[in-house]
């Protein structure tokens, strides 16, 4: 008679766990190492040292002024609950016009009045930003309208196709259409 029972062969999953459980640490440590370059890219992006945003969309003529527009990130709009979807744009005013411009607005589709001019830019004239509401039923050929109000009371408008302003938003809208 045997005094020592032969141990039953452990389940493969159990064996796998026993063999590799401490290697979980290595996997976890690899995460921040892998994201480190991305972290420094983001720091440069937020400090405005890698450009106005991740992708510069171009310059829009608005009456006597110009506005350089950029996507903060080349990502589709982000959801903000019931308020809908928003896309962050950054912008810089033309050199020498920061004293003359009172306010800058961004909107998909042409605004009917100054009161509905859209999202108001916030920040310094060298780099300001706003969150543009993007309705899910926006057409592919929509224009993004820039409205600028001068301290002298004048109002000027200019536009850029959404396809140029944010290709990622357009692609997202097209996917939404396909899904419906």
């Amino acid at each position, binding site marked *: 008679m045997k005094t020592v029972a032969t141990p039953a062969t452990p389940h493969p999953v159990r064996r796998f766990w026993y063999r590799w459980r*401490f290697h*979980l*640490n290595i996997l976890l440590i690899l995460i921040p190492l892998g994201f480190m370059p991305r972290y420094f890219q983001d720091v440069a992006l937020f400090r405005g040292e890698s450009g106005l945003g991740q992708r510069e969309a171009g310059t829009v003529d608005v009456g006597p002024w110009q506005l350089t527009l950029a996507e903060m990130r080349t990502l589709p709009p982000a959801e903000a609950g019931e308020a809908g979807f928003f896309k962050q744009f950054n912008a810089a005013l033309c050199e020498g016009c920061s*004293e003359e411009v009172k306010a800058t607005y961004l909107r998909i589709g042409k605004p009917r009045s100054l009161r509905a001019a859209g999202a108001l830019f916030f920040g*310094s*004239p060298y*780099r300001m930003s706003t969150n543009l509401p993007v309705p899910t039923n926006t057409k592919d050929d929509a224009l993004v309208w820039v409205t600028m109000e001068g301290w002298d009371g004048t109002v000027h408008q200019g536009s850029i196709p959404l396809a140029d302003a944010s290709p990622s938003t357009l692609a997202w809208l097209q996917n939404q259409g396909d899904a419906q």
Partner: protein
Amino acid sequence: MSKKSRSKIWFMVHSWLALPIWFFVLIVCVTGTLATVSQEIVWLANPDIRAPKPSPDAELLTLGQALEKVQRAEPDLKVLSLMRPDESHFALSARVSYPDGSSPTLYVNPYTGVIQGVSPQFDFRQFTRALHGWWLVPFTNGFSWGWYLVSLLGLPMLASLVTGLVVYKKFWKGFLTPRLRLRQGARVFWGDFHRLSGIWSIWFIAVISITGTWFLLQAVLFDNHISISTEGVPPVIARDAVPRSESATPPPQLNLDQMIAEAVERVPSLDPKRVFLSGNAYSLTFVEGRGWYPLMDQTVGVSPYDGDVGYVRLLEDRSKLEFVTESMRPLHTGDFGGLWVKLIWFFFGLLLSMMVLSGLLIWSKRTVSATAKALRKERRANRYETEQTPAETVA
């Protein structure tokens, strides 16, 4: 189930809570510990953020005076915000925007208004916070999954505390008769250390794990668009309240000290420490600082045109729930009562990191000795088996 086997289970649970991810937990604890004093570490390393007094009788500038000095030195830059740190040995910090689009932080001497330096590319404080808080996983849409990964640790940490107190019989006796045996081998030393630092850290582990779990809950609420805030959208200045300009340039504005004075007149308990200057023609300038309660800020929004107070958010405007939830972050970081509180948090953070390490050492030593014992037993049994005849074994 017998009492003994029940406590054995508790013990097993306690030993296994952090074990497979011990290194991850250790790094999170160590980076958190460093983060509590990261500002002080930067102070030691970088003279730009210190606040040297030019002469023994030099007086502090008001925020408005400092702003004026900065603007005069660099007329092209736009100041976005200006902050006076809680501790007087730190320089003022001004978030600014340059014509090239970059927006670094400037360190400004609080006595002279001289710009002492620009925040370096590698911000140690920000980096330790990012590593500790979200494991460097970027935020793109809502909270980063790294945030979930780290804040999830609050739960096993809380469980470690509870199970630790269950398996440590009559732990309160440890307060009266502390025991740290130095000369009886590493296993005994680390065991004593783990228990002793554990009971003295009960409050700290509870604070860190509960606030950590709150961070998890906060992310869950945010990502599901559930708000518990009683704070409305900060108002803008009405169109007709912005004065018309005679020329094509902006109308005159109050200087910063006048705006701060308006804010303090409205809310006398406000200790103005931070100002966020208007970000466009319709936005208020916000003055922020603490009141009687050290864990939360009060905010007053003032119109830069006429000093009209357009927004007030005081301690008493918060709901009871917000008092609790808004206190969570300062309680976690220890940044609410100056250097001494930070140092206490640092010390207990170090102790907590050591507890992770000592827990691991105890476990490995116990397991090593248990394994060795088991092996010895088996070998002996095998030898016995080969040497004895079956008949003898039966007998």
